[in-house]
């Protein structure tokens, strides 16, 4: 018993002194045998203890060794993402935790974000990816926890923290004497960089030993994390340097290619000048030598050549001078009301002659007799001459060139189309750069100094318009020029910091305002933003307002319509300005030619970043609830674009995508004005309301109804307008438009539900549709509604393979498809809503028919080319 008591006595473990004393006492007591037994027991105990210490030390040594080796690996990693994964994995491997989540601090979003995982099940990992914790949440989390060194233990009783073991021998825990790890417990280990800043933390679960780690283990963990933090800091520095290097390389490439282009320009210009000069010199020499012997016809012919070539020479010189004008910014622009159709008709004569010489066909397609808008006629003529000349140049004999001028909702569109050699897709934007030539080599097949299109773009931009090129199938190029009838006016203070990037501040605002006004079919759209002190709203950009108003308009919170929206944070839809507008009319006066107005707030995380106001619908109808829903559905998109625009540093590539999106979604020109398509959208929204579609879904539906088919423009018109049935490959091309649409809309950051709606709008109720073959209620409700609207609009319009159906025929066709293509719950409601608008549809069909008759002979692009 005594021996047992001694063994149990804690002191005996390090009893270098006590044991002999005790033994001496026992000896004095007279039990030599007992002494021996005790001596043996103590020695055994000591040996066991030593063995244990050695084991512990060895295990610690192994841990340290493993920490050092993972540290070395971590330090050798330059890639930040890879590094984070390695850190998470290292904690599992070297320290022995079953689950690790690494959060890092983001300066831009001001939160900790989960970026790396180790030891987690895939599902768990997926649910945590991107998880965010604010600084406040982090502080709250850690303040409630018990602290050991720099780490925090969460979800444990206060007494089971690591801290209360510090006054004991830390080996306790290492020996397995630590308290066991409870369910739901977590250890938070901060990542502290050299400067002491908290750059992130690790959330650790399920230690391998199954117990709360000891102080020593915590210190090991912190040692590893210190290494990691340093490595992450240096990786970040490295990353920044690499990125800056890449930027520099990009700039330097750009400079080199500019230099190359200028060098080419000199070579090209000299070549261009030589060609007419050669004829002039040679013919003059011939004339001088043979003046007396030449026949009158030859004399006449030679003089004509000399004259023509002199004109060519002077045109080239004009171009070169034009280029320097361009660089000076065109101070002498002279805009007057000009009939563009008349101008094209006038120029058409000489183009026809030119076409005949080149054995090329030439056509003009002018929508109406007169298309008047404010232009500089000299410049516009120059632009047209360039574009058409260009088309001729790249179109071999036997080809054709078509020039068309069309009026659209807020703009006039000029297209110049050829069926020539086309432009490589990756060069479609570059061709508008000065001195650029697709083939700049000295063996190139085509003449020109590469300034024509740069001049065209400059002229168009100075008219607040846009120009771009696309290839058309099977071959050829189509240039589009959009000239606004109401130019966008920007606040003069708009920062020009963006100059130099391919997409400049002015152009962005211009495209944005065009997008809004074209999409809603309104003449007037204004973007107001709060000033720096948050005292006034000022106009950032506007379409349809005089410049003086843009510069002077200032609204206090609560004043005017936009000010009211600012104060309430809510949409304002005014049906009848004269009745409801009262005091506001002072500030807003005569601009409202139709008595309705719609103003929506742009809110970014609860803060007002702007107010968009629209009025004056092109078709003269008042703005209604559908317009409200639609504009509200645009708001998150506009806010996203504006926010990204403010964070301009994102880089040029991103803005290319934004530009393409705005271009594609504006260029469709399917505005919300009185048309069959618009009525079909209206029927669709009415159906959605009557089946009680939730408000969020309604807004999404309104948005998607406008843009669900923009990807169709990427499908070859040859296929879309094919009169006969499509073969399998062609059908696949058409079906791919859904993917194109989603690609075009990508920069608008659509939420997943909106994407689903677009993705599935060709699904059939019986599962026979595409792309997923969804059936019944699994098809998103909005997608089923779009399917109905899309079909009705298509049936009511003519297609190359059939005439337009009458309303009765179209409704009957839909009725027959109920349960097959269409949802049996929605289709009857939809058909009812359509019946209610019978008179309007009939009237619109008559109008569209008469427009077609007038334009007979020209190929009309159908408003909604859909294969249903």
């Amino acid at each position, binding site marked *: 018993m005594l021996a047992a008591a001694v063994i149990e006595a804690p002191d005996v473990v390090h009893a270098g002194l006590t044991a002999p004393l005790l033994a001496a006492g026992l000896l004095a007591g007279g039990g030599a045998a007992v002494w021996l037994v005790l001596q043996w027991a103590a020695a055994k105990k000591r040996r066991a203890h030593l063995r244990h210490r050695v084991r512990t030390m060895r295990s610690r040594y192994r841990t340290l060794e493993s920490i050092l080796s993972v540290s070395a690996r971590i330090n050798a990693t330059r890639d930040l993402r890879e590094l984070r994964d390695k850190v998470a994995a290292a904690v599992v491997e070297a320290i022995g935790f079953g689950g690790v989540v690494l959060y890092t601090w983001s300066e831009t979003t001001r939160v900790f974000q989960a970026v790396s995982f180790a030891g987690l099940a895939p599902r768990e990992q997926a649910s945590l990816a991107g998880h965010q914790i604010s600084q406040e949440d982090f502080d709250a989390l850690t303040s409630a926890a018990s602290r050991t060194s720099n780490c925090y233990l969460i979800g444990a009783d206060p007494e089971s923290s690591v801290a209360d073991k510090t006054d004991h021998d830390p080996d306790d825990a290492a020996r397995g004497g630590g308290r066991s790890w409870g369910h739901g417990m977590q250890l938070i280990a901060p990542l502290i960089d050299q400067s002491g800043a908290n750059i992130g933390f690790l959330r650790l679960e399920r230690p391998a030993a199954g117990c709360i780690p000891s102080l020593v283990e915590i210190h090991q963990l912190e040692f590893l994390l210190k290494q990691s933090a340093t490595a992450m800091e240096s990786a970040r520095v490295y990353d920044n340097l690499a990125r800056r290097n890449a930027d520099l390389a990009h700039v330097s490439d750009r400079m080199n290619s500019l230099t190359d282009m200028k060098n080419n320009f000199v*070579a090209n210009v*000299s*070549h261009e000048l*030589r*060609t007419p*000069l*050669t*004829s*002039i*010199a*040679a*013919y003059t*020499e*011939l004339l001088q*030598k*043979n003046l007396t012997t030449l026949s009158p016809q*030859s004399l006449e012919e030679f003089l004509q*050549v000399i004259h023509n*070539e002199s004109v060519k020479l002077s045109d080239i010189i004009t171009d070169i001078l034009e280029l320097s004008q361009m660089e000076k910014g065109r101070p002498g622009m002279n805009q007057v009301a000009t009939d563009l159709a008349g101008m094209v008709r006038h120029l058409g004569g000489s183009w026809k002659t030119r076409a005949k010489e080149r054995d090329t066909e030439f056509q003009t397609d002018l929508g109406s007799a007169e298309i008047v808008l404010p232009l500089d006629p000299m410049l516009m003529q120059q632009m047209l001459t360039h574009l058409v000349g260009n088309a001729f140049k790249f179109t*071999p004999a036997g080809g054709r060139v078509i020039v068309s001028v069309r009026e659209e909702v807020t703009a006039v569109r000029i297209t110049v189309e050829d069926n020539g050699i086309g432009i490589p897709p990756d060069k479609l934007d570059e061709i508008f750069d000065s001195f650029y030539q697709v083939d700049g080599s*000295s*063996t*190139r*097949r085509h*003449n020109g100094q590469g300034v024509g299109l740069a001049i065209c773009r400059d002229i168009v931009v100075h008219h607040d318009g846009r120009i771009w090129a696309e290839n058309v199938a099977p071959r050829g190029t189509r240039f589009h020029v959009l000239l606004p009838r109401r130019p966008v006016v920007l606040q003069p203070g708009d920062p020009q910091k963006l100059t130099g990037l391919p997409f400049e501040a002015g152009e962005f605002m211009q495209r944005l305002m065009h997008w809004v006004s074209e999409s809603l079919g309104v003449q007037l759209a204004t973007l107001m933003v709060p000033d720096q002190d948050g005292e006034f709203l000022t106009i950032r950009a506007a379409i349809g307002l005089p410049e003086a108003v843009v510069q002077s308009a200032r609204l206090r919170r609560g004043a005017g319509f936009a000010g009211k929206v600012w104060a309430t944070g809510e949409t304002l839809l005014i049906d009848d300005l004269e009745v409801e507008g009262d005091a506001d009319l002072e500030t807003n006066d005569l601009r409202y030619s139709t008595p309705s107005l719609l103003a929506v707030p742009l809110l970014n995380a609860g803060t007002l970043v702007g107010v968009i106001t629209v009025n004056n619908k092109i078709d003269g109808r008042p703005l209604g609830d559908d317009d409200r829903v639609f504009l509200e559905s645009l708001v998150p998109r506009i806010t996203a674009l504006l926010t990204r625009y403010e964070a301009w540093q994102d880089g040029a590539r991103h803005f290319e995508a934004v530009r393409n999106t705005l271009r594609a979604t504006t260029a469709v020109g399917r505005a919300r004005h009185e048309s069959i398509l618009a009525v079909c959208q209206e029927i669709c929204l009415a159906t959605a309301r009557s089946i009680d579609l939730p408000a969020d879904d309604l807004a999404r539906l309104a948005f998607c109804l406008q843009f669900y088919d923009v990807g169709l423009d990427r499908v070859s018109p040859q296929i879309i307008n094919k009169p006969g049935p499509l073969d399998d490959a062609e059908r696949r091309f058409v079906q791919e438009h859904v993917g194109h649409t989603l690609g075009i809309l990508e920069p608008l950051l659509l939420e997943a539900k909106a994407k689903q709606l677009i993705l599935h709008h060709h699904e059939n109720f019986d599962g026979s549709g595409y792309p997923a073959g969804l059936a019944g209620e699994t098809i998103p409700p909005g997608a089923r509604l779009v399917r109905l609207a899309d079909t009705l609009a298509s049936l009511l319009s003519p297609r190359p393979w059939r005439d337009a159906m009458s309303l009765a025929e179209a409704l009957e066709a839909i009725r027959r498809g109920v349960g097959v293509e269409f949802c049996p719950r929605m289709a009857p409601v939809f058909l009812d809503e359509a019946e209610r608008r019978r008179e309007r549809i009939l009237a619109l069909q008559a109008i569209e028919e008469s427009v077609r008759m007038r334009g007979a002979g020209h190929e009309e692009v159908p408003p909604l080319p859909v294969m249903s």
Partner: protein
Amino acid sequence: MYKVLIADDEHNIRNILDFSLHAEGFLVLSVLNGEDAFQLACDERPDLIILDIMMPGKSGIEICRDLKADARTASIPVILLTACAGTGDKEAGLAAGADLYITKPFSPQNVIESVHDLLGAAR
């Protein structure tokens, strides 16, 4: 009568050469591009060929190379008559086997004299 083949896509240049050579008593064949020039050279075996460089399709340099590589046409003298006057252009032309490199603008009289020289040397 000597046969001279001209390849140039510029109507005016073909005309003036045709006129000048004709006046000197040459028989003139003219084409608008390099491929036709090569074909006609093989079929007609002219005594001399005048090639522009920048033409639709194959360039004059490529055609010159083809002509010099083909046994049927290798011995026919070739003049490159071109507006390409950059550094290295002439060297490239001569490397392709051209007998003479004349830059535009040119004097028709000089071209006639060069044609006579080359034909005299070829005899």
